[in-house]
């Protein structure tokens, strides 16, 4: 990563954390319906988003991909409109809860609820790139819980058969809401699956933004060059409960999580990549951006019932 890329990476990681913290507290205070924390996952998305060509490449996002969206150009205010489910939210227009991202302008495929149905949508998107021959690559991100669904198998198989320009990234945090890794799959990691489809696999520390960026760059450029898809197994730790509706004290030990966090927080690790003064200034800037975005978005009007059936059909 260049010095400028490191600064961009830090800026995005810091902003994601600031927004994440605000959303968690606001949801807990009952000011909004639903928060989906991304802390612990941020470096994965920042890594691939920085490796993508803005306005050219496509992202079929994971629901913990806030940091990637910020790199791709989503504003804090738009994030908060999504969080407060306002009709002016460019992601889901008040019709889907927070974290169902999507933006045609930013080349982010609209995301759905059932995980991870967007895998095949991403494959279709990549197929479109191949048919249109426009040189774009699609990054398809999902969790290791989602990876256990047949959807992912079918999608990776099709992408490999046709050497489609896409990259599969599994955010492997070891939990599917409350169910631990051992009850979801029998292997330690998922990277070996790549070989089963005839595609390269890369295992990476997903809390190391530089390592993630390197892996994503390699995979994206291979896809762009016609080398077909790659599976990136990005290990991370989910620092927070699954969502604001989850109580993770029922199934995991917080002290273990706190220890992992103290050890591997991607934001703290990224601080080492930039000047301390820069980091401090950016953190303060982002705190102010997050506060402004939350206050502004909460003040935006709710939906008009007369419009509820709009856009059911063209």
């Amino acid at each position: 990563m260049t010095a400028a890329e490191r600064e961009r990476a830090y800026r995005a990681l810091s902003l994601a954390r600031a927004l994440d913290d605000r959303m968690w507290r606001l949801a807990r205070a009952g000011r909004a319906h639903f928060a989906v924390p991304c802390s612990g996952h941020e470096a994965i998305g920042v890594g691939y988003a920085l490796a993508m060509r803005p306005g050219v490449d496509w992202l079929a996002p994971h629901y913990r991909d806030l940091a990637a969206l910020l790199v791709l150009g989503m504003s804090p205010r738009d994030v908060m409109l999504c969080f407060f489910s306002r009709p002016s939210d460019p992601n889901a227009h008040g019709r889907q809860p927070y974290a169902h991202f999507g933006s045609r302008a930013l080349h982010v495929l609209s995301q759905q609820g059932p995980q991870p149905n967007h895998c095949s949508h991403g494959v279709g998107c990549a197929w479109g790139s191949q048919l249109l021959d426009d040189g774009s690559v699609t990054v398809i991100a999902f969790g290791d819980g989602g990876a256990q669904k047949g959807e992912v198998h079918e999608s990776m198989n099709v992408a490999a058969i046709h050497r489609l320009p896409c990259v599969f990234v599994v955010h492997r945090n070891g939990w599917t809401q409350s169910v631990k890794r051992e009850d979801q799959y029998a292997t330690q990691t998922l990277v070996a699956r790549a070989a089963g489809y005839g595609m390269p696999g890369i295992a990476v520390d997903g809390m190391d933004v530089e390592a993630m960026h390197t892996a994503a760059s390699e995979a994206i450029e291979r896809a762009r060059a016609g080398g077909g898809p790659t599976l990136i197994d990005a290990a991370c730790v989910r620092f927070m409960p699954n969502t604001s509706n989850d109580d993770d004290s029922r199934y995991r030990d917080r002290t273990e999580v706190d220890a992992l966090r103290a050890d591997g927080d991607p934001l703290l690790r990224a601080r080492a990549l930039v000047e301390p003064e820069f980091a401090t200034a950016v953190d303060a800037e982002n705190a102010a951006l997050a506060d402004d975005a939350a206050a502004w978005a909460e003040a935006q009007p709710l939906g008009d019932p007369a419009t509820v059936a709009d856009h059911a059909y063209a």
Partner: protein
Amino acid sequence: MPEPTVERELTVIEAVREALGDEMARDERVIVLGEDVGKLGGVFRATEGLYDRFGPKRVIDMPMAETVIAGVTVGLAMRGLRPVAEIQFADFIHAAMDHLVGEAAKVRWRTGGDWSCPMVLRTAYGGGFRGGPYHSQSVEAFYAHAPGLKVVAPSTPADAKGLLIAAIRDPDPVLVLEHKRTYRAIRDHVPKGDYVVPIGRAAVAREGRDATVLAYGMMLHESLAAAETLAADGIDVEVIDLRTLAPLDREMILTSLAKTRRLCVVHEDTITMGLGAELCALAAEAGVLDVPPVRVAMPDIPGIPVDDVLEDAVLPNRATIRDALVRLVEHERSRSLNGSQSHGMVHGQAYDAAIPQASSIVEVALPEEHTRVAVDALVHAARAFPRCNATFAWTGIVEHDDVVVDLDLGPAAPSRGLGTITLVDYGPGGSDLAIPFVRPGQTAAVRIGAVRHDRAYVACAVDHRAVDGADVGRFLAAFKSAVEGVHAG
């Protein structure tokens, strides 16, 4: 040589093939994908020739994985291509349902119109060819229930072409249900060139006055055959080809029902929660039916059996449709005990709906004290004309063995409404002539007016839903002769 002006006849499968080829030639964004659609040309040969004509990039053989077929189709459509996916048999479509109902149908709505999903998914449905429970199903009710999705079900070669072209050009996701028995069994005129049948419009396949059949797919053709046989019996059935199942052409359906006032829905899908339920509800809410609607559909069993006799027993056909239509029309027709004498009646809803009662009056010779004589005469007349001693119900007219006459002898002894026939008798103090009203649940009311010089006017009213107008006269004539015979004796 000029082009022949005679329109070609094509089978349904040839029409589907023509639509796909024409649209792929017209628009490079149109691609076809599915199982065996390439070199094989599809198991039903819908895509035959397309692989050679357009190449493997646009005619794509997919793995045997319906979920990803639907999923990549959604993604391709969101990227702006015009994918036409084939699910080999509708029985296999449920693995794709999450992408059709959960994704394709919602994409536009959930993004406030920012995204769209202009995809087509074609599939072969329907039984009648010994395919068993996994190659014969009708799946329309599941998908017609999903707002955001359009569902079409062509029955004719021309519609197979025109609706498929419309579906490919439609900005929203369209499920095209092709009845596999129509593929080769139905051959008809198909316009050449660019031919679009608008989605959302039904068609009158046969005009008629007495009842409306709503059908689609192979059942349209069975319904038309049933209608033809009924025409010979003087029953004139209108058959509507729904063509689009979602959104329904409510206007055409209700226009037809407003004319015929009777509804018969025919589908191969199982009856409970099937499309017929929605169509009956539509008619009921609009208040356009004079009699209860009839559904001819698969019974509620988990699958279509492969055994020849069993499959034939569960699928609707022209004979079962005909039977249902006869019941539907007979229900409403005023029936005389002697059907051959029913000529001269005004047949149709105007007569029935305008006056639920038919009445007749006769002058009878009888004494001042005549209650016993009159009751005996009523029993005699009712036995002679049992339809006048019957109870009308929507499920059919029930004729009673016993004659129960309820006496309404004025304010001192009012009728309790317990009989089938009420005898209303005002005696010497009453008026000469008045028409009594039939009580709900009864069939006839007979009123004897004031007796003047051993003569009185007797008026009879009947529930005309059960009794032919001509029978009122016959019933009363029997009553008169019985009263006068006893009196004379």
